[in-house]
């Protein structure tokens, strides 16, 4: 979650709570009902804020961090002293082959989701210092301030709509 989104959610909860409290001035309810009104109001406000945030298309795509793969540990084998009839065994510890069956009749994955906008007219933002796509954005009209969330990079830069993207070099082996 970005800083911006977190602030919006907190403010929404606070405002919903305030609204509920204000409403209590109009209707006189007992203590427990009053508490319920405030909690439900806050909850509904937060739910509404989530809905608004996820349907925002100008700044889109919740990214998933790319998971690093854990190495498969080599089996710790020691020379056995008793002979094993391994040639008669069926291998049992093999995991199923990790192949996804390719879609029938298609040679290219149709992994493209309907975007709702013209990708041809879009700039896809990535960090100029490292090439990562996990970015925080603060927008002010046509002016954008970016922060790279790659923990080994943290680069900050600004960009204005219409300007060329800054010189970009993909660096995945940064040491911080």
């Amino acid at each position, binding site marked *: 979650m*970005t800083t911006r989104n977190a602030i919006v959610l907190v403010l929404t909860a606070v405002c919903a709570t305030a609204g509920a409290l204000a409403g209590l001035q109009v209707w006189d309810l007992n203590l427990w009902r009053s508490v319920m009104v405030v909690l439900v109001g806050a909850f509904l406000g937060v739910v509404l804020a989530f809905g608004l945030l996820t349907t925002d298309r*100008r*700044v*889109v*795509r*919740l*990214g*998933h961090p*790319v998971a*690093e*793969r854990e190495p498969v540990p080599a089996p710790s084998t020691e020379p056995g002293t008793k002979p094993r009839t391994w040639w008669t065994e069926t291998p049992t510890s093999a995991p199923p082959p*990790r*192949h*996804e069956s*390719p879609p029938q009749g*298609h*040679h*290219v*994955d*149709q*992994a*493209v*989701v309907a*975007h709702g*906008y*013209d*990708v*041809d*007219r*879009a*700039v*896809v*933002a*990535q960090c100029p210092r490292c*090439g990562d*796509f*996990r*970015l925080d*954005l603060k927008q002010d009209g046509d002016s*954008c301030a*970016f922060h790279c969330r790659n923990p080994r990079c943290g680069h900050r830069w600004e960009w204005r*709509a*219409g300007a*060329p*993207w*800054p*010189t*970009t*070099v*993909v*660096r*995945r*082996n940064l*040491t911080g």
Partner: protein
Amino acid sequence: MNHTRQVVFYAPKHGNTEAEWEDGAAAAPAAGDGRGPRFAVADGATQGFGSARWAQQLVAGFVGDQGAAPDLTAAALHRWASDMQGRWHDDPRLAGATDLQRLKQATVGSFATFLGCELRDLAGPRPRWTAVAVGDAVLFHVRGHRVVSQFPPIPPEGFGSNPDGLPTHAAGLADMVGRASFAEGDLADGDLLYLATDAFAQWVAAADRRDPRALWTTLAALDHPEAFRALVAGRRAAREMVNDDVTLLRVRLDRRPAEHLVVCL
């Protein structure tokens, strides 16, 4: 046609970590001195030493991130590559090297395939791309879901395991620069250029033979690294794409500025 927009997608070989990706990719906008936008990809040798650093050095240097970008002539490239070798050899990070690492740096070093491209005269009467290639990194020039030209013109079955490449050692550099090829092509509004290292390039070349419309539609629509990686994972699983580091740099030419900004949160 004043606007170019690019994005670089990349993924390490399956089984390796992000930091073990050994390709290089870089892009730079037009410079004040009249130089046009530049793009470059490179593929560092798997069995080399410091291959990621070398590939990165080459692409960053070519686009002008490390001093003056070289002209696209053999002589200028030779001087420039020599300078890049010096920087690679004198990298301050080598101060902490182990004996094994020093031995490998001195005796083996690395080499990298390389593809660099500059766009010229974008606002003038003859906008065009001009490129240099050493080895099997490939440029695909695409217009309306069809390949206008591929440089170098390697067929899918022609991608081998001993490609030419720019070495980190001085011996052999002149020979490799001598084997570099140069090309250019005329550009039109809406054209797309794709620069890819060999694993992805080989797959593209094969897929273009089977169903070019589906291929180029898919590649043009990529707007998120996860979509790119899902594509790569699927093709690797189907054994259509070699399991190796992959890199795809997509450039779009447009006379209009962008309407959208896509940010992956």
